[in-house]
């Protein structure tokens, strides 16, 4: 196990987007096979799943042949764990806005440490390594340390290594909602007008609680050196007919910065330590310690460049829960297996949206009747 951990750490220490794809995939295949053999065997159900997988784990020659889990298995209660209860330091929960039940991800100290390092390595590649003032467009409560932490909190905490100081600009409004603290925000903007600043918020929260109130009062903040990171999906904004361009332009106007400084990143709590910010070409890249496979829904085989399918995320980072190979509920487009114009090596994708709910289930669909009966 210690040798395995050492190899994971070695991979984590590499520059995240510099390894040639063939070498990257070969390293990942061997590491993941060992992780599955050494870690998944700790759980009887996972062992049974691997045993019945149509491709023998030891003879698998492609990453795509390894047994992956649908992400929904991480909604299990109690959470799936590969470590003793006493070793669990924190449980992360997903936002569960569309799926009702949240995923629950258990972290031991080692996984939590790798999670922080993974996010830092990626963010550093996009933002530079220096620390700067960090404005969080959320409430302090959302990132409060505790045994359980939600997706928003995990994202906020993941960027802390870049902060010299942290400022939260939202607070409770006393009526059960949250509200922008304008005075605090304006003070922050004046104090840091000329220096680089990092801003993070959930996409919908940024729009509803920062952009909309400031646009309504025609307020702008002169902070051309900000970098604004956001994550959390577009569904609610799409419902309000706000697209990416409108969103980026709105934020850029507020801060008087270039729209290039607004970075959307795809990430999911279950894929700990990995975030996927947009590069200048508008693509999402996979770091050396991870990989994305876009699978054709008809065959579950990896698609070719330019095709769309279901996103599978792969990561060597977790050792406390089985988050190594997860078939997500998201659709993506495989842009290229290498050669993005931004210079980053390896697979790059674009996020397309959630897998649409099935519409045609036919006369054999009795789901509601069963639910009512239950």
């Amino acid at each position: 196990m210690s040798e395995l951990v050492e190899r994971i750490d070695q991979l984590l220490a590499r520059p995240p987007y510099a390894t040639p794809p063939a070498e990257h995939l070969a390293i990942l295949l061997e590491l993941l096979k060992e992780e599955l053999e050494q870690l998944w065997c700790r759980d009887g159900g996972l062992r049974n799943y691997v045993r019945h997988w149509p491709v023998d784990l030891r003879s698998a020659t492609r990453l795509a042949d390894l047994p992956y889990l649908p992400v929904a298995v991480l909604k299990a209660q109690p959470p799936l764990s590969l470590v003793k209860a006493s070793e669990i330091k924190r449980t992360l929960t997903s936002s569960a806005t569309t799926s009702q039940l949240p995923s629950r991800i258990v972290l031991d100290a080692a996984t939590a440490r790798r999670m922080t390092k993974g996010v830092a390595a990626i963010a550093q590649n996009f933002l530079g390594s220096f620390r700067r003032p960090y404005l969080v467009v959320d409430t302090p409560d959302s990132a409060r340390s505790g045994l359980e932490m939600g997706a928003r909190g995990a994202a906020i905490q993941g960027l802390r290594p870049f902060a010299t100081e942290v400022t939260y600009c939202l607070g409770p409004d006393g009526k059960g909602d949250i509200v922008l603290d304008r005075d605090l925000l304006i003070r922050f903007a004046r104090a840091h007008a000329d220096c680089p600043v990092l801003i993070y918020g959930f996409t919908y929260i940024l729009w509803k609680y920062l952009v909309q109130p400031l646009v309504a009062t025609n307020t702008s903040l002169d902070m051309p050196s900000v970098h604004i990171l956001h994550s959390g999906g577009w569904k609610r904004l799409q419902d309000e007919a706000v697209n990416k361009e409108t969103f980026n332009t709105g934020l850029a106007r507020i801060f008087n910065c270039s729209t290039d400084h607004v970075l959307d990143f795809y990430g999911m709590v279950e894929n700990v330590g990995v975030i996927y910010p947009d590069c200048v070409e508008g693509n999402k890249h996979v770091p050396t310690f991870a990989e994305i496979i876009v699978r054709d829904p008809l065959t579950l085989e990896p698609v070719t460049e330019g095709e769309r399918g279901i996103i599978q995320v792969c990561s060597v980072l977790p050792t406390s829960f089985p988050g190594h190979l997860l078939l997500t509920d998201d659709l993506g487009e495989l842009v290229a297996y290498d050669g993005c114009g931004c210079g980053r090596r390896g697979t790059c994708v674009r996020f397309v949206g959630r897998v649409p709910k099935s519409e045609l289930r036919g006369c054999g669909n009795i789901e509601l009747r069963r639910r009512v009966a239950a």
Partner: protein
Amino acid sequence: MNDLIRVVDSPAEISTAVTGVRECAAANEITPNIILDVFEAWGAALGEPETADIPGVPFLRLWLRRNTLEPIVIRELGRGALYGDWMEEGRARLKAYPVGVVGHWPAGNVEIQPVLSMTCALLGGNASVARIPSRLSEQTQRIMGKLVQVDGNRLLTERVFMPIFDHDRRDLHEAMAKAADGAMIWGGEEAVLRVRTLSFPHWARLAVFGPRISVAAMDAGSWSSSGERELWCRRIAREVWQFDQQACSSPQAIFLEKKQGYFAAEFVQALRIAFESENRLHPRRAIQPALTSAICQARASWLMDNVANQAVFPTGPDWTILLGHGSDIPRPTQGKTLSVLEADDLIKVIERLDGNVQTLGLAIADAERERELASLAAKRGVSRIVKLGHMHVFFPPWDGVDLIRPMVRMVRHVCQTD
């Protein structure tokens, strides 16, 4: 043809078309005997290359034959109904009259269902307005093209209208419902519930088919016989493949009664070969990503929830066999995902069935035991008990309901004088 089946975009288009077919049907009484002649010719025409490859058309051709439908008309409406005669019943006489315009809301997963539903209403002398889901428009146009071809005098086509529109066009559904004297509603729960809330006239008759699921059961004498195993497995594979296991008559689970010295795993291996063979013959052409996700989820949760469970599946989502023990029906996944459950006693299995189950496919070597199981299943709410291999054979009563009679008025004339 354009008048008969076309995309509509306004309630007015539906109202105008319904008025047209209603007037035609009212002006021209037509007997089942004449309709059967047209159906016979239609069935023959459907064998031509343009339509022969549409899923379900081989079955539709059999359905349209006089040999199939004439007995159904006689059983449901009486012998005299074939020629539009009154039937004597003591001092009274009876005759079937159409209810008027029958609206059809077919399920979107069965290519021939709009047409099947429509044939039932036409045999009752009704006009028909069948909503065609966009997904089925191309196949339905080809099928109806053959009816136009054989129905030179427009005996049937003048009383049929098939509007094509999306399921979320509530205004168009409402227009159809308001004009209907009867409705035949097929589909999953969401679809059926949505249609039932439409503003039908108070006199409209509703016949609802589905949503329900189906299961199969085999006694040890059937599944453990090495000589017959392959044959049974081929039958099961065909039952699962038809309609991509989304029909109410598709088996979602099969219960195998245990027998000392015989192992269900051997049966599953034979089933695997049958599934692989069926998949080569009839590979899936398209799939919704949500179904792929559901299949992956079913495989994982089955194997992870109970370490005694087993499963066989290929790397793709083509098919899945989940093997375990128990008497309860697992949550259906569809998409050719079949649960095979070993059970100590089939009686215990059947005792746990309820009104959710439409069809029970049986493979029982002992005829007396089969009758016992069938009676128990009927008591528990099952509507069809058939031989395994015949689960999709569309023959009334379906879902416990006749297919023609619900859409006719049986008029009784009590004679004043002898």
